[in-house]
């Protein structure tokens, strides 16, 4: 079964283009400097429309997660993580932690992570893996 994939909108296209180019792109406000996610054409802190796209470092830490023991059909059959990571720039995003055992022992809160990308045809998804891996 094909993986469930996002359908970009004009407001989010830069993010998905970035993933395809191997770059995690965030936005920040030109006026108040707030970095934010998910993408939108206005600053969620001050409402300014003066916002810019910038490449994030790709560094993050594990903020919280579950290990789904009843995976969706497109996710395979093995239990897998559904995680939220805290990006170095501040915003948090949902992702899967990959390249590591999907166990509570291997997935320690606050462990350092780095972004990695996987292509699924029209879309490239950002995942995170242990920083030392």
């Amino acid at each position, binding site marked *: 079964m094909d993986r469930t994939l*996002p359908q970009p909108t004009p407001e989010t296209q830069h993010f998905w283009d970035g993933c395809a180019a191997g770059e995690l792109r965030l936005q920040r406000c030109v006026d108040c400097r707030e970095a934010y996610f998910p993408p939108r054409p206005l600053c969620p802190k001050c409402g300014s429309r003066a916002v810019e796209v910038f490449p994030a470092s790709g560094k993050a830490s594990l903020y*919280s997660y579950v290990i789904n023991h009843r995976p969706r059909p497109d996710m395979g059959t093995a239990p897998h993580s559904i995680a939220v990571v805290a990006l170095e720039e501040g915003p948090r995003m949902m992702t899967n932690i990959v390249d590591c055992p999907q166990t509570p022992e291997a997935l320690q809160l606050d462990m350092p992570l780095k972004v990695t990308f996987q292509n699924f045809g029209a879309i490239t998804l950002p995942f995170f893996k242990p920083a030392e891996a």
Partner: protein
Amino acid sequence: MKPGSIAVVGAAETTKLGKIPDMSVIGLHADAALNAMADAGLKPSDIDGVATAGASPVETAHYLGITPTWVDGTSVGGCSFMLHVRHAAAAINEGLCKTVLITHGESGRSRVGAGGFGRSPSSLMGQFEMPYGVTSPPTMFTVPVLRYLKARGYTEEDLAMVSVIQREWAAKNPRASFKDPITVDDVLNSPMIAWPFRMLMCCLVTDGGGALILTSRERAKDFPKKPVYIIGTGESVETPMVSQMVDFTTSKAFRVSGKKAFDEAGITPKDVDHLMIYDAFAHLPLYGLEDLGFCAPGEAGAFIRERNTAPGGKLPLNTNGGGLSYMHSGMYGMYALQESVRQMRGIAPAQAQGAKIAVSHGVGGMFAASGTIIFTNQD
């Protein structure tokens, strides 16, 4: 709202609860509505305001033969009915209508005439959460919890204890789906759904419905049942994506909604005799006790473990057995309100003796929305 200006004069659930394969969603709305009208001694032509979630108020009004002068289709998840009560109070006080019917019906288990659960792949949730394998509430509502447990020093046993004590309440309720006693070990040994959540930490999936009828204080005295007055209301929303909660250890929507309701009623948690906190999962009562001010952050686990919310405790909580053991159709907020009304009428199966003030606190989506209603039986 003006505290005490509005009263509940009719309240009922569907005739059956649990597994109802012979009724569709709209049929469940109607069954609950007719039961509530019978409770209030009213017929559809007496109703001039309709609010509902899930179904459209157009569907409900037309199905029941009601010609409303006010409708509310606010649909923000399971707490929508708390918001309907709040909006109805404002509408009645403004003179937009006199007698409001709020209905809920959901074929959660049997899926007769029910819609699907899903988001457009172009929505923010569709783009930034769905690709990672979230399925439904058990893999979304649960995502903040490991962070919460770590920040508060709570354990899996603290989560399990919530389920254990609510089962004690359910044992007293003949209409509860699950009544057999369970232990912390039973909960921790039940099938893993999404670490750290086991099956017995997750709500039921059942069929059912409920309805409320509200009117002004002045008119309420002419109804067959003793009025239950509404003295405080609150509502708020935070985010459609659980991953974007500002803080995984506290719900902003809970705090804003709760504070608004308590301020309006002019009461503090110490004044509350009976409490309902929407428990789609075992962590919700812990967040609710903290965010409503019943416990300091980090103290809710011990508060429950020390049996303060259990039968015989000082703060009876989720006395119908809750979404974990009583029933959960999908939008459980209506059943929390129904239990608060039963407690204020003095007719609950597990009645809190002498209770004068009851709080019903709901959640919508995965910490997306919240609504809080405070009731009293005192004139």
